[in-house]
C-alpha cells in the first residue's frame, strides 16, 4: 500500500510536534502492539498444547468428530441452498407492487429476524409434532431432529437473505428498469434479465456473510439432539473431564467449513463481476462472423 500520501520520513521532523501528527511513529507502535499480541497468542496456544491437550485422546475422538463434521456439512449444504432460494423469493416478494405480498413478506422477515433461532428450533422440533391429532407419538417422521434443524435454519436465514436481496435490488438504479421496460420487456422479464443479475452481485457479500453465520448456527442444534460437532464436544468433555482436547477439533472443523464457505463466496463474486469473465471465446466467435460476412459480400 504505497500512495502519494505516504510519509517519506523527512517531513516528520517538522510539524507542530503533536504525537498524532507522526504517522511513522504510530505505524511502528501499531506493528509492535500487533506482533506482541500474536506472540502472546502463540505462547498461550503452545502452553495449552503442551499442558492440556492429550494427543492420545485427540486420535481416539477424531472419528466421532469426523462423523459430526459430515453431518454438519450435509445440513449446511441443504439449508444453504434452500435458504438462498427461498431468500430470493422473499426479496422479490418484498419489492412486489402488490401490498398484500409485500406486507406478508415483511411480516415473515420481521418474525424470523426478531425471534431467536433457538426459539424457532424449539418451535419446530418440540412444537410441531404435538400438533398431530393423537399426540407426538403418532408424528410420522421418526427422526425429526435433522429435518427440524434444516427447516429452522432455512426459514431463519431466508429472512436475512431476503433482506440482502431486497437491498441489492434497491441499489440497482431505476434507469435499469426503465431502459428494460422501454425495450418492451414486461416487469417480470426486466427483473429476471436485468435487475436480478445486478442485485445478486450487490447482495453477494451480505449473503456470504449470512451463510457463514448459518454454519456457526449449527452449533445450536446440539440442544435439539442433532449429533453435531458441539454435542461430540459435550460427550467427550463430560466423560473424560478434558475440555481442551476436544476443543481443538471443534475449532478446526468449524474453520474447515467456514473457510471453504468464504472461498466459495469469493469464487461466486469473481464470477458475478462482468469484466472478470474470460471473453476470448466470444471475441473469436465475433471475429469469425464478421470475417465470414466480409467474404460473402
Amino acid at each position, binding site marked *: 500500500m504505497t500512495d502519494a500520501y505516504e510519509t517519506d520520513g523527512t517531513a516528520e521532523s517538522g510539524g507542530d510536534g503533536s504525537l498524532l501528527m507522526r504517522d511513522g511513529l504510530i505505524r511502528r507502535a501499531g506493528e509492535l502492539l500487533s506482533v506482541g499480541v500474536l506472540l502472546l497468542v502463540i505462547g498461550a496456544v503452545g502452553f495449552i498444547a503442551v499442558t492440556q491437550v492429550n494427543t492420545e485422546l485427540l486420535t481416539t475422538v477424531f472419528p466421532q468428530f469426523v462423523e459430526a463434521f459430515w453431518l454438519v456439512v450435509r445440513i449446511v449444504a441443504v439449508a444453504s441452498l434452500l435458504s438462498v432460494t427461498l431468500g430470493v423469493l422473499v426479496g422479490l416478494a418484498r419489492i412486489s407492487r402488490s401490498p398484500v405480498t409485500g406486507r406478508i413478506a415483511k411480516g415473515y422477515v420481521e418474525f424470523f429476524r426478531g425471534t431467536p433461532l433457538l426459539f424457532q428450533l424449539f418451535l419446530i422440533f418440540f412444537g410441531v409434532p404435538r400438533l398431530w391429532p393423537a399426540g407426538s407419538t403418532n408424528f410420522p417422521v421418526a427422526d425429526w431432529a435433522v429435518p427440524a434443524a434444516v427447516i429452522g435454519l432455512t426459514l431463519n436465514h431466508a429472512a436475512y437473505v431476503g433482506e440482502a436481496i431486497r437491498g441489492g435490488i434497491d441499489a440497482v438504479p431505476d434507469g435499469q428498469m426503465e431502459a428494460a421496460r*422501454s425495450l418492451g420487456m414486461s416487469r417480470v422479464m426486466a427483473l429476471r*434479465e436485468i435487475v436480478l443479475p445486478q442485485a445478486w452481485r450487490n447482495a453477494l457479500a451480505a449473503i456470504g456473510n449470512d451463510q457463514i453465520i448459518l454454519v456457526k448456527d449449527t452449533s445450536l442444534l446440539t440442544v435439539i439432539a442433532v449429533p453435531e460437532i458441539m454435542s461430540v464436544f459435550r460427550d467427550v468433555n463430560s466423560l473424560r473431564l478434558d475440555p481442551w482436547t476436544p476443543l481443538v477439533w471443534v475449532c478446526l472443523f468449524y474453520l474447515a467449513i467456514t473457510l471453504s464457505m468464504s472461498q466459495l463466496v469469493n469464487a461466486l463474486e469473481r464470477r458475478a463481476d*462482468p469484466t472478470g469473465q474470460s471473453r476470448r471465446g466470444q471475441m473469436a466467435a*465475433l471475429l469469425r*462472423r464478421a470475417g465470414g460476412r466480409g467474404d460473402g459480400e
Partner: protein
Amino acid sequence: MSARPLVEYDAVDKSFGETQVLRSVDLQVEDGEVVVVVGPSGSGKSTLLRCANRLEEVQGGELRVAGDPVTGPDADVNRIRRRVGMVFQSFNLFPHMTAIENVAVGPERVLGCAREDAEQRAYDLLDRVGVADQATSHPEELSGGQQQRVAIARALAMDPQVMLFDEVTSALDPELVGEVLDVMRDLARDGMTMLVVTHEMGFAREVGDRIVLMSDGRIVEQAAPEPFFESPSTRRGQQFLSRLL
C-alpha cells in the same frame, strides 16, 4: 403510411403529486420528422418525452403512437414500447452485459429472434454507430460517448418507428458530445422520426425540422428552426433566446 401523425399528444396533463408538469399539451410528430424540444430546466421537456412510451402515466388527455393509444386501459404498453426507441441522459446500459449483448437482448428476449440473428444484427448496428470494435467490452470499459452510441444501437435494434432522445449529451464530457450528435444526425438523414430534448442549440437548428419551446409545462412556441432562432414570435421565445446568448 397513413397521413396521420406518428405521435399525437392531445391535451395531455401530467402532475407529480401537487405539481403540475404538463398542462394540456398538444403536439404532433409526423412520420420522418425531427422535432426538437427546448426550454429551461423544469419546464417539462423530459416528462413530455417519457409520457410517449408511458414511463410516466398521464392524468388527462390522450396520447397515440401510430394511431394506437398509449394511455388508458386498452393500451398494450409493451407493444407500444417496442415501436418507440428511447435513449437516456444517463445511458442506462446493462452493466452485466457486453455491448453486443446490450443491443441483442431486446430482439432476442422481446421479439424472440434467434440468438445468432440477434447478435448479427446487433453487430451491424454497433458498426453503424461506430463501436463495433468494442462489441465484447462491458459498459464500464467504454467512454461516455461510446456508451451512448451503444445505447442508441440498443434502441434501434427493436426497429422502432420513432426514437426519443432525452438530453442524451448532457452527461458527456464536451469533447465526446460531437460523436453522439453525429450518429443522431445520420439517423435523421436516414428518415428516422425523432423527438429530441436537448440543450445543444446548434444541433437543434441544424437537424431539427421543427423546434418546440416549453415553459412551465406548456408549449409556448413551435416553429421551423430558421424563424425560431432568427425571429421568435412570442415573448417567451425571445426571453429564452436572449438567455442563450
